[in-house]
């Protein structure tokens, strides 16, 4: 990545060095921390210059200029806090407030609303508007998650531009004229894209809010916890908002990370927390169908006396859980099965190591080729990045898979093609291409074909493997002494294991198999009713917002999960009971105490295996929490 060229310019009479070519508003906000009000500009969506709120005085220009539509250049002399500039912004703000309803007490945005903040900052406490305010539709449900309040809208156009630039369809439009100007869904078509939650994030007022969070709490009642989504392998950075009084997580919002999710989240990940069973239905204590008490003692005895126990991890296991499971398996002569594919593991070793982050390699590539999957359904957030890259930096987009074309709205190359045909034909792409290769194609293609394909690629091209599970890469990194799932099905068919401990989802293939020879089946479940009929011991299961640990995402980034809520007692957490069991087995070595230490300590306290992973990957929470939302 090229380092930006710093140039000298004047802000409020002071000389500052700012990166040339950068958006002036963003440079002022980020580099010299000057607060400038703005509505239509959003760092992700870009400038429009329609709200006129970011006006600054430019020496040598007779009129005020919008800072969001200017770029940093040598010798520019601007005044942001002069009387003229402040006065101009104050009067622009007054026009915004003409028809804005006084909804703040019961508006979901109240307390975190830019308009509210700017109004207070400008001391705009009285209205000079003597006429009746414009009346508009106040509660129109326009999708599964979003409710629209037309009166509150300030017509910043962010949602319209997000639709056209990122989703490929203007899901919301502005219609009518003058003071009747309002935002609405065309033809009353509800929002269907998988990214509707973002509207509520970047809407600067309470016009677009989510139904899930509606009237749940006020911002000052909540604390944010920085965590990572466990929905897919991208591992979007997010903030979990926990209500302090009740301890429940009410919403998930994105956290900016330019190498992962930028400013966005998909609805699947964002609203996943609302799909969980209600707290009353959750299993919060371990249940043994034979004895009433001392479940873990019984479990310890069972594992200790078992001939061939098996631990089955699922995709949501953190790196720390994998580590400790392997340790425990070591003592109890158990086999650990994890949902990673040996084909993917073999393919991953083919890829050359790179020092670039995903964001950097994406920016460097001239064209992007998606191989083998519809991004929108498997790794949704990446499809936003691709469409934006086309609109903003004119990258060419190629996609090859057997589904429908998701980029039909932009100029892109699409071919309905199977993996076999693709690797035979090897369609021509630019020399500097970033390939986003789906796990689906890797798993169905012979290894030799893939080897020859990787060799045939030009040197400047890069391949990013998109895996399925949220911590599948972490499993591949720790794959020694673990067996993939296919071997487990075979072992179950051969009646190898007498004790099976399922740490997470029950794989569908396993549910179909005959488990009558398994004497003890242990399962972690959200609800007791969801357990397998043969499960003897049920343990409570934690959702990703209830876990502490790390996930390694599909780009190899080790990211930290922080516990946002606690539904059941700490000693029932997988990591904790395993640690207790290890101590029962007589394991008192330092590495396990260090594994416990990771909860509070930094990367250096990791056990050696994990430390190596962390050091070999690029970053660890190095993005500051920013105020962009």
């Amino acid at each position: 990545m090229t380092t930006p060229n710093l140039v000298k310019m004047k802000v409020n009479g002071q000389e500052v060095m700012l990166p040339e070519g950068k958006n002036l508003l963003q440079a002022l906000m980020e580099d010299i921390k000057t607060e400038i009000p703005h509505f239509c500009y959003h760092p992700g969506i870009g400038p429009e210059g329609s709200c006129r709120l970011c006006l600054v005085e430019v020496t040598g220009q007779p009129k005020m200029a919008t800072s969001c539509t200017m770029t940093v250049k040598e010798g520019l002399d601007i005044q942001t806090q002069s009387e003229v500039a402040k006065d101009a912004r104050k009067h622009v703000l007054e026009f915004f407030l003409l028809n804005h309803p006084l909804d703040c007490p019961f508006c979901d945005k109240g307390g975190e609303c830019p308009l509210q903040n700017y109004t207070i900052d400008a001391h705009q406490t009285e209205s000079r508007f003597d006429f009746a305010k414009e009346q508009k539709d106040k509660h129109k449900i326009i999708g599964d998650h979003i409710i629209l309040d037309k009166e509150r809208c300030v017509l910043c156009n962010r949602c319209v531009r997000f639709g056209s630039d990122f989703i490929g369809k203007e899901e919301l439009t502005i219609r009518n004229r003058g003071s009747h100007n309002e935002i609405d869904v065309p033809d009353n078509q509800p929002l269907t894209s998988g990214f509707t939650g973002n509207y509520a994030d970047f809407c600067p007022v309470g016009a677009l809010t989510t139904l899930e969070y509606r009237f749940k709490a006020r911002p000052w009642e909540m604390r944010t916890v920085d965590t990572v989504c466990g929905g897919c392998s991208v591992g979007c950075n997010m903030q979990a908002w926990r209500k302090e009084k009740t301890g429940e997580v009410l919403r998930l919002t994105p956290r900016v990370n330019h190498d992962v999710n930028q400013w966005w989240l998909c609805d699947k990940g964002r609203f996943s927390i609302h799909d969980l069973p209600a707290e009353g239905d959750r299993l919060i204590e371990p249940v043994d169908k034979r004895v009433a008490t001392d479940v873990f003692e019984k479990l310890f005895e069972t594992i200790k006396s078992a001939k061939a126990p098996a631990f089955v991890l699922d995709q949501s296991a953190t790196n720390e859980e994998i580590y400790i499971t392997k340790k425990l398996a070591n003592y109890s002569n158990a086999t650990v099965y994890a949902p990673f594919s040996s084909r993917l593991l073999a393919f991953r070793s083919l890829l050359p190591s790179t020092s670039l982050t995903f964001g950097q390699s994406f920016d460097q590539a001239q064209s992007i080729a998606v191989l083998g999957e519809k991004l929108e359904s498997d790794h949704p957030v990446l499809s936003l990045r691709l469409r934006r890259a086309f609109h903003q930096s004119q990258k060419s987009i190629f996609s090859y898979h057997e589904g429908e074309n998701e980029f039909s709205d932009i100029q892109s190359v699409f071919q309905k093609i199977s993996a076999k045909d693709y690797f035979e034909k090897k369609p021509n792409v630019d020399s500097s291409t970033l390939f986003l290769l789906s796990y689906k194609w890797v798993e169905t293609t012979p290894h030799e074909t893939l080897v020859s394909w990787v060799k045939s690629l030009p040197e400047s091209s890069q391949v990013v493997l998109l895996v399925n599970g949220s911590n599948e890469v972490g499993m591949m990194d720790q794959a020694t002494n673990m067996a993939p799932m296919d071997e487990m099905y075979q072992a179950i068919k051969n009646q190898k294991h007498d004790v099976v401990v399922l740490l997470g989802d029950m794989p569908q293939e396993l549910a179909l198999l005959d488990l009558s020879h398994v004497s003890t089946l242990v399962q972690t479940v959200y609800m007791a009713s969801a357990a397998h009929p043969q499960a003897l011991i049920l343990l409570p299961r934690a959702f990703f917002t209830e876990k502490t640990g790390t996930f390694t995402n599909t780009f190899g980034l080790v990211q930290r999960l922080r516990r946002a809520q606690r539904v059941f007692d700490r000693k029932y957490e997988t990591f904790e009971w395993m640690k207790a069991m290890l101590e029962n087995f007589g394991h008192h070595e330092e590495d396990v105490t260090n594994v416990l230490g990771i909860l509070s300590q930094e990367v250096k306290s990791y056990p050696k295996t994990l430390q190596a992973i962390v050091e070999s990957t690029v970053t660890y929470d190095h993005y500051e929490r920013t105020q962009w939302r």
Partner: protein
Amino acid sequence: MAIKTAPRPNLRWTDYLYLPSILKGLKITFSYFAKTLLRKNLYTMEFPEQKWMFPKRYRGYPMLVQGDNGVENCVACKLCEVVCPPSAITIRIGHYNNPEVKERIPAEFIIDMGRCIVCGMCEEACPCEAIVMSNAHVMSSGSRSGLIFKKTLLLDDYHQIPTMRD
């Protein structure tokens, strides 16, 4: 600073007896006793049955206000909850069944009168004039839970006492 010694009064032997002073005091006491006995100029009252009249602007315990449409004015904005110094107020937000009339009401509005310090900050914070200080000044209950007032009780004018101007 110079020390100034106050001169001691010259007391006679009758003064050292203290008896004339005691009798002088008792004369006042017994005169009031006689007046009360004859029901002239009462200085105490039969408290729970009789109540003191307060001026209208007297600041007593808080109460909720019912609007003209029959719904409480409160929109559950939670500003009083956050501003309340002893955290006596608890609000749970709820949806009103007719959004055309009102979208949001408090599903639960609880004031723990045992904690309330009658400071009036809730009234000051309220953007909807939904919580006001009544002139109720007597709070007594046999149990702590009896001092936890729910919404229906707070809306009721149970503790409205006739004021001087009424």
